């Protein structure tokens, strides 16, 4: 890990030591949630980026976006892990608090699993579709736009800056391989050290919880575009025939944090 990361880590640890020394578990619980939300966001964005790999929206920029998002995800992962391990190792937490930390732990490990799979897949697809070859055959998927906005969301910046070398598509793959092994090792370590039974955790959200609070996000169906070429009439009376996308203007990004 480089110096910047180490110092960040040291600050974080100092903060958590201070907060736990005042036995204020409520605040550290909130901190945890914030960090987990950030990790969750980066994982979601990383998945969107990996889906664009190998297709016609693949480019130098995409590879760089992937690299930056990945590094950010790893930073967040390490920070989350340290925080949560420390909270879970503390024997003086109340039962309710402990249940809450175990729930957060399950959130964390699920995120990490998704991240690990996506990293492995991005390695595989990255190897199959190098950019700097004379006849490159990117799959014509119909996606042609860029993914800078998604990456900007992941990095929590307004605009992305691109400063990578032109051989990033091959050079980055080696780094990616080492990072994948690191993540794998980290997850094995976590399994060994922390005794949490994931199946014992009860979710707070009930079925259909995703419908609440997203109704405000995304303007509603003022005009829908259907991807069926023909009229709805010629489709066999099946409501799932058309995929309707709300046609409103892009809603202002309402941050969860």
């Amino acid at each position, binding site marked *: 890990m480089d110096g910047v990361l180490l110092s960040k880590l040291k600050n974080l640890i100092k903060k958590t030591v201070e907060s736990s020394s005042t036995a204020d578990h409520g605040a550290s619980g909130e901190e945890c949630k914030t960090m987990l939300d950030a990790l969750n966001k980066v994982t979601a964005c990383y998945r969107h980026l990996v889906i664009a*790999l190998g297709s016609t929206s693949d480019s130098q920029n995409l590879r760089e976006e992937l690299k930056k998002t990945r590094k950010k995800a790893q930073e967040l992962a390490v920070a989350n892990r340290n925080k949560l391990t420390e909270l879970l190792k503390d024997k003086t937490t109340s039962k309710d608090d402990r249940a809450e930390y175990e729930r957060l732990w399950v959130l964390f490990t699920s995120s990490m699993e998704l991240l690990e799979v996506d990293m492995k897949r991005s390695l595989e697809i990255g190897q199959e579709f190098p950019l700097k070859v004379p006849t490159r055959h990117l799959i014509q998927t*119909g996606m*042609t736009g860029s993914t800078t906005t998604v990456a900007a969301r992941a990095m929590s910046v307004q605009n992305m800056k691109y400063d990578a070398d032109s051989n990033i598509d091959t050079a980055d793959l080696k780094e990616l391989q080492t990072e994948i092994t690191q993540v794998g090792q980290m997850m094995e370590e976590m399994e060994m050290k922390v005794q949490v039974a994931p199946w014992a955790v009860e979710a707070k959200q009930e079925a259909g919880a995703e419908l609440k609070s997203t109704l405000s996000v995304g303007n509603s169906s003022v005009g829908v575009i259907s991807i069926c070429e023909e009229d709805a009439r010629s489709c066999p009376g099946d409501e799932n025939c058309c995929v309707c996308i709300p046609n409103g203007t892009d809603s202002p990004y309402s941050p969860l944090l």
Partner: protein
Amino acid sequence: MTIRNVRDHGQRFRPRMACLKKVESVMLEMQDPKTGVKSQPQRLVSTTIPHAITGEDIVAWLTNCYSIGAEEAWALGTMLVAFGYIYPLQDHKRLVIKPDASLYRFQTPYFWPAQQWPVEDTDYAIYLAKRNIRKRGVLALYEQVQYNSLHKWMNHKWDFIVMQAKEQYRAGKERKKPDRVVFDCQERAYWVVHRPPPGTVSAMDYGLERMVDPNTEEKQTSDFFRRIMIFTQQSIMRPRVKSSVSIGALVKYSVTYNKHDPFLAPCLPSNPWVTDDVTYWFLNMANVGIPTKMRVERWTFSFGELLSDPRGRDDFRLFLKKEFSGENLAFWEACEDLKWGTAATMNDKAQQVYKTFLTRGAPRWINIDGKTMEVTVKGLKHPHRYVLDAAQTHIFMLMKKDSFGRYLKSPVFKDTQKRAICPDQHMFSVPQLEANARKRRPSISPIIVRQLEQEERARMATSGPVDITQVMSKLSNKGKEVPPSKK
């Protein structure tokens, strides 16, 4: 966290999917701007999306590239769609290639079916949650069922699923409109292939997963050689049969069963796996009153066939009851019960069998030769599952040589044969087939079936088998006085 007893380092090998690598190279060739498939833009209401290809172009390209006939190209194209490498833009639930102007599009490499990436239920749950958001709670019926079941057994991860679904949904909105439409199509197509809605046939039904790569070369250790030696020794010791005899047996089998094989001859009224209509299974249930003609014909092939079909066995039992020789079949069934029953009940069952069938003066005494009787009684001192095997075989051969022939000539059988039905073949039109697919429901739970069977057996046991000693005494009294007719 998912249980990670098996570290999945791409170890789940699904041998039938070995063709996927080859399909990927076909995909790459199709992308070539000069020699690949020609693409055209797809015009929607408010946007234009490039890279749409027509079915006829795909089929024509395959025909040219591989110098094959049109029908084979059509089959190959359908395979590409069924695997999910190409997805249809209209009629997205039918994974076939229509060699006309219907539009298709290539799937992004992330969503390609890859041999070593199993399809995760977590991802499916996230997808359903996202769909729930977009459809504002109105999911299709089969999706709703899946959603509920996933919510039940993945409950500990549900917070994560909701969080991730919301985040992915928001991140997706960051892209431009045409890309959003394409992404939604891609994701939907991926899940149509891997979690097919009712009525969709996808190519992903690959059977059991294997933990070992069947294509790796096995390391030649001493263990390996020992196994080969044992195998060859056993092969040498095996009794051999002249090939004319064994081939003759195969030919006879094929000729006899030709019309009864559902792959080679259409089964009446229709094959449920093809038409989704379950009449065939209803007509051939174990306790049906009137069997079908094909079923009755099968009983005449061999005694084993008759006994293994529960309806046939019932018929045979009825015949034996009229002949007062039901104890043979009862003994045979008791032996089967012992063989297949639980270990805890074995001792009791063996004793019961001895008391009822084998001991001198038993109520249902069976007629086996002295040697077999000796062996059996000796074995019963330390009963195990197969202790009655010798006696069972003897009785089986007895029934086969004697009763079976008489059964086939008996009025019982002739009556059953006459009353057997021959249903007409179904002629379903395409909309009727789709309606059938929608009406598919799971059949009766096997637990209930087993309960019914047990009740049936209990009922038969209480109705009482014919007690031979009483019958004999009645018969011996017959000569002395006229018994009052009780019936």
